[in-house]
């Protein structure tokens, strides 16, 4: 980190929206310790620029035509670029956060984040740490905990914990009993248990679901 200490942080902006590109560049350019070395509007472009211009930090949008943010992340990792990546997106679905962190992102920011928070994030990640805002971190942890259960499976798991039968669950969710059974099987498989009672027990134990009092 020493070699960067007195220098400005070199930043590459990757976003397919010109308004965002321009705005972000303007805003960051007002800070002396930040140098925006360029803007890429696609994953492919970002890959080339990351290898040529060796940025310290890449601000990466997730939703782009062609290569998505996640794809770009993976490609960057494969190309063994030194740059650290912060996801800067409009969305915060559990799945997106989870996949981005899995793919090697060091930070996750929403586009409506305040300037101060953004600067803090850049500084933190540049210092070699991760920066994930508290609520997002909480959800990420939750997502990690829940292994690979889908939202639907989670919902069914909660109903199982309440003691509903497949038929009642099917009725409540307006799906067939068969579909419910498939979901239950999938839940048991993912939690590595042999029956539904055990599934509920394990789920409560691991904090995947909370028992309503």
């Amino acid at each position, binding site marked *: 980190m020493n070699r960067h200490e007195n220098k400005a942080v070199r930043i590459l902006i990757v*976003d397919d*929206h*010109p*308004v*965002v*590109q*321009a*705005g*972000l560049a*303007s*805003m960051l*350019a*007002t*800070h002396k310790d930040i140098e925006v070395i360029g803007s890429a509007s696609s994953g492919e472009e970002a890959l080339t620029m990351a290898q040529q211009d060796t940025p310290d930090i890449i601000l990466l949008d997730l*939703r782009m035509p062609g290569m998505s943010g996640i794809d770009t992340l993976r490609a960057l990792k494969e190309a063994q670029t030194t740059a650290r990546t912060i996801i800067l997106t*409009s*969305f915060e679905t559990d799945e997106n956060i989870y996949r981005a962190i899995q793919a090697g992102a060091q930070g996750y920011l929403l*586009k*409506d984040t*305040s*300037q101060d928070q953004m600067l803090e994030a850049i500084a933190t990640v540049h210092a070699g740490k991760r920066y994930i805002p*508290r*609520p997002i971190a*909480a959800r990420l942890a939750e997502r990690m905990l829940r292994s690979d259960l*889908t*939202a*639907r499976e989670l*919902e069914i798991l909660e109903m199982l914990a309440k003691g509903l039968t497949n038929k009642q669950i099917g*009725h*409540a*969710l*307006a*799906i*067939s009993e*068969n*579909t419910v059974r*498939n979901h239950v099987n999938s839940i048991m498989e993912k939690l590595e248990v042999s029956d539904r009672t055990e599934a509920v027990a394990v789920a409560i134990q691991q904090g995947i679901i909370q028992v*309503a009092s």
Partner: protein
Amino acid sequence: MKRRPQIWKWLAISLLSFAVVAGASLLFLIYLHSPKHGLPYHDSFAQGKADEWEAFGGTWAVYDGGMRNDSDERGAKLMSGSPYWKNYLLEADVMLLGEDGDAGLIIRASDEEQGVDSYSGYYAGLRSRDNMLTLGRASHGWLEYQNVPMPESVQAFRWYHLRLLAYGCQIVASATFPLSGGHTTTAAMADKDCLSSGRIGLRSYSAGGIWRNVHARLATEDDLLAMLGNKTRQPFSSEEAAGNGITIFGSGSLPSHVNQQARPATNVQPISGLRLVSGSQPTAITIRGVVSLTAPLYVQDSTGGIAVKAASSPPLKVGDEVQATGTVRSGAFHSNLENATVQLLWARTPVQPVSVTASQAATGAFAAMFIEVEGHLLSKERDAQNTLVLNLEDGQQSFRALVHGGRGDLLFNKLKLGSLLRLRGVCVVDSEYTNNLTPFVLLLRSTDDIEVVTGPPWWNTRHVVAAGFALLLLLFIGQFIHSRIEQWRLRAILEEREMLAHEMHDTLAQSFAGLGFQLQAIRNRMPEDMPAVHKQLDLACDLVRHSHEEARRDIMMLRSESFEQMELTRMLEQCARKMLDGGPVEIEVSQAGDIRPIPLRVNDTLFRIGQEALANAVRHATPTRISIATAYAKNFVQMVIEDDGTGYDAGSEKKGFGVRGMKRRAAAISAALEIATSPNKGTRVQVTAPLPARMAFRWKTHPKGSGSHEQA
């Protein structure tokens, strides 16, 4: 969301299946019209079955493995086969039942009607009157082509083997009498303007007959040559026929010849007079009349009819003129001629029935006479001797009809209870037949004496039940289609929403983000000594961020995944947790009633109102506890968001904007919105939305992986 192509897939599948069905039907039609379909053919007379035959006159019925017509009717026909048969050979054993007339086979027939020569086709038959094998063509008139004498006289009650072949325009007939060494007599014609195809048939003229081993198969030229042998054949056409001096006359125009042995007696009594004969003094009486029924024997003259119990009798056919001598025995309403000697005088045509009503017949005035009666069929049965017993009713008058099983099950099965039948038969009042159950019994000559006038009335139990089922099925299908359409519509809406969400994300949200950054950049560059501008820029930044947040919320709202996977209560809870950012506020969630899918619009609106209420609570009320409660009832769903925060003065206009939005949304789904608040007493927002009544059961199940978004 790739569901639209599924519709095309469905369409393609239905089009394809339609094409397959159409193609198959076409092939089937071609198959039916093929000149080979149904060949070779062999009768099933031995099994007592002949449902494929159709009678035109006569008394056709299967007896002892043979098809029998014991009527003197001229030109009685029994037809079968396909009108598309072309080149084929028809063979049968034929026996004549009378000395006067002919019997044989028909090929290439069409336009059959009841009557002497009422058909188009070729006929070959054995004629006992002049011992000929006769061959000719009928076109509703008789064109006789060739008469070839048989080596021995043609006699009744002997089996002859007849063959009749059509190949191209060549027609060949041959007859063999196997018992006399099998000499084959052949007649042939080459018809220039021939009939090219048609059905097969059995026909007798006056003689009656029995046919067995009826067999038809495709014919080749070899068959033709084999049958012709070295016989030469001459061209024939109807125009030339007259000019060439060939006899052309109706096959019925020859006079019948009188049986020389049986001389008409002179002391013949009218049959009606026998009723007056006293039973105490049996005297020999002679009558004369026409046979109206052979078994049992009934004879009728112009005055009346009588049952004849013959001591000795030659074989008789319906229509034979006979003379019978015996003793009269009178019963209650009838008399029989018993111990009679019957002599055959000559063949005549069968008598025509007298048309009467059942109550007229019940008086006994028509006893032993051949009558025609109409009646509604009450019940039908078949006894061990293959006799059909029909119970009928005409008005208040009930009667029975008995008939030999006929030519198979078809007619018996076809007779529907309640239908109106017209029956021809001999009216019998003898208690031997009536068992004193009905005033009279009708003895029919054959099943062809049954004619269905009108079918049973439509409104019987079975039809009503069937119609009920059909209606139910229609309803079911209608409901199914309705729900499918509803599902499609919903999917289309969800797809549209998702597209809208993406569109908003790509334009609106990104623009807000960019604008926000740009404003921040301007603020950063603004010199520190302009606090007023700074303040304004900060406000602008806040506004943009707020708008961005709103847009983000809208987008989340529109994305169908969030709907498919979440129930309202859970969605609100998540929303609240997100807003609180893990803060110290306690969230209480409760739910009552059965969770069930509610219409998308209602769900949507409740969520937006709930969101607004939660946002108000979190931003302005600084509560320590927020409770979210939903209740599902039979025809409404209720949502209550309550906080213990600062509340506000309900009268003030300060919160007006948000509340107005909630009211507007609630009104759009006819929901009742109640907001209870006062300073420092917290706020309670309650929405009650009406729901369509819950259905008793659901038809559809979900396609795997799609959500719970359709309406109950």
